[in-house]
């Protein structure tokens, strides 16, 4: 019951932060402008009638809104897949990129930038290769006998290194004045190119996967006790694992489509959540989703507010995440799970 209150508190915080973010930005359009725009719209006037209102509508609904929603969606998707992986692999150092999805998606995006050039092709290719990398690591794991989890991790390392090497090759072959900078910037990650349209086709699969993972939390609890114990409880370990991996991969690959590679969120946020609500996945996964959204939203606000130039988001999440992670490691010695 105590945890329920914590979850409610975090939700309220998240909503407050989202609301504030609406009125923060480099462009001086704050609360009063927002109220002005809403009252204009309430009087059923079309904002495109007045140039000032049109500008405000543009800032609030085409620039800030997709960024805020994008930050929450990406942050929570990464955290949930990280938390799911951590309890499935029974390992606190696991992040969503474990099975190679990030490496595969990076390679896919870079290749599309060199060969196709259109933004849509980049998104599709990133998604396809992200999934392909995970399939590769699962296939490799099946080839060998031994501890399934260990084999999966090894498969992930192999597949991740393979696609990282391919990525380096594409970077080497890319035009150094045209394509290479585009690849490098894309890999740094950021939410500046999220549009309402991208959000529209990405949010349904992400939210669905998140829903499935939340429905599976009791099984995750069983899995995190170890394979044997889970089997003795009557859990179909192979199937559950496959669904978990599929959903987590889908979510991480879709975040890459929106925001490029954003590190640390999927590793650190599940730990924050675990410190607050404990290891029970039924509470942990929803809390991780909320905290992840809040964390990335705050980081993105910093990224767009502090200087006239934007600080790449990947740098901020890492810089703010690392001290926290050190803290977690200290804590981890006292016992994890």
């Amino acid at each position: 019951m105590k945890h329920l209150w914590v979850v409610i508190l975090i939700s309220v915080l998240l909503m407050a932060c989202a609301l504030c973010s609406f009125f923060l930005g480099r462009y001086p359009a704050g609360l009063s402008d927002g109220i002005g725009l809403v009252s204009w719209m309430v009087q059923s006037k079309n904002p495109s009638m007045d140039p000032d209102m049109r500008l405000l509508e543009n800032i609030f609904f085409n620039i800030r809104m997709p960024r805020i929603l994008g930050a929450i969606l990406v942050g929570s998707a990464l955290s949930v897949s990280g938390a799911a992986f951590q309890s499935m692999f029974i390992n606190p150092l696991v992040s969503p990129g474990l099975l190679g999805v990030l490496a595969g998606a990076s390679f896919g995006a870079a290749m599309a930038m060199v060969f196709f050039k259109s933004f849509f092709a980049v998104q599709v290719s990133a998604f396809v290769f992200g999934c392909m990398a995970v399939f590769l690591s699962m296939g490799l794991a099946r080839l060998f006998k031994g501890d399934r989890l260990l084999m999966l991790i090894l498969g992930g390392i192999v597949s991740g290194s393979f696609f990282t090497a391919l990525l380096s090759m594409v970077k080497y072959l890319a035009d150094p004045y045209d394509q290479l900078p585009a690849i490098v910037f894309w890999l740094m990650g950021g939410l500046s190119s999220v549009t309402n349209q991208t959000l529209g086709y990405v949010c349904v699969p992400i939210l669905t996967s998140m829903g499935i993972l939340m429905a599976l939390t009791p099984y995750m609890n069983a899995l995190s006790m170890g394979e044997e114990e889970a089997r003795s409880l009557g859990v179909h370990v192979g199937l559950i694992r496959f669904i978990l991996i599929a959903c987590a991969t889908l979510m991480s690959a879709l975040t890459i489509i929106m925001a490029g590679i954003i590190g640390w969120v999927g590793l650190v946020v599940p730990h924050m959540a675990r410190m607050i609500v404990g290891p029970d996945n039924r509470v942990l996964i929803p809390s991780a989703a909320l905290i992840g959204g809040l964390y990335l939203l705050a980081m993105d606000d910093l990224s767009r507010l502090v200087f006239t130039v934007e600080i790449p988001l990947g740098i901020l999440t890492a810089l703010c995440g690392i001290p926290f992670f050190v803290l977690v490691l200290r804590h981890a010695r006292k016992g994890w799970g």
Partner: protein
Amino acid sequence: MKKKMNITGIILLIWLIGSAPGAKARTIVDMAGRHVIVPEVIRSVYGSSPPATNLIYAVDPGRIAGLNFPLNGKDDRFLDSRLKDLPVAGGWFGQGRTPNMETLLSIRPDIVLVWRHTLSMKDKDMEAALKPLGVPLVFIVMDQLDDYPAVFRFMGHLLGDAERAEALALYAEQTLSRMKTLRDSIPEKDRVSVYYAENNDGLSTECTDSIHSELIPVCGGDNVHLCQAASTYGMQKISMEQVLLYNPQVIVTHALEFYRHVFSDKRWRGIRAVNDHRVYLIPRTPMNWFDRPPSFMRLLGARWLAHALYPRRYPFDQDEETRDFYSLFLNRPLSDQDLKDIFKP
């Protein structure tokens, strides 16, 4: 220092005697003020980065010893056919493609032409790496557009082709003086504000004093992104709201993907340049006219941009001037189809 020089001289001498019997040497002063012993006749030059290689191309494409990165395929027909047979030796620029010393040895350039980077450690790295090669390093300075007349004349002196170099230098001087006249004729209040959009999302740009955006002030425009460049590489990320706040009158870009979607993207609506349809795509065939790499193409790019910014004050016969420039600098007469391809978005 002097002793070092002597040793280099002796090594060089031995190398010269070994490789080219009978070749004479001469001492020149390079643009960094160093005394360098170079062969009397220089037949092949390796440029350590694309701007240097491009400069050799303008004077004599036949003397390029090796390329810094492979030709991109689509613009090959605008370039000298001899380039296709050259080895890709790499160079010191951007990321990766550091040269393989054995490739450099096998192409045996008479000299290495280096664009001096005043802001970076690269020169030291490069000098150390090239020492075993025993090939003299000749430094050139072309940090600003203003340096071009001098750099052309220096190249003419170095390569023994003063006549051609003089023609190029005169073109550069003509461009520079026209730009100065244009700048002086524009009252402060009439200066056009310009945003330089880079990257596919159009949200990377350059500071006011960056070499990458030099043409904007040269052509009398005001770069909206007022700051000091922190690195020579540039490409600073900027937020959409900051661009809205700048509200530039003109946007120039070399990013095709950005140019294609800027007029339909809702977020860019409301910016003066977009409303007035004053977003210009920089021609990049066979080399960029504006930046990346900064090359002599900017001498034409300046005239093109000046006209884009001030159509009335600076008349510019686009087809005619482009033909003239390509035949002078690239030795490539242009057909009507070529012109279409150059300006096609």
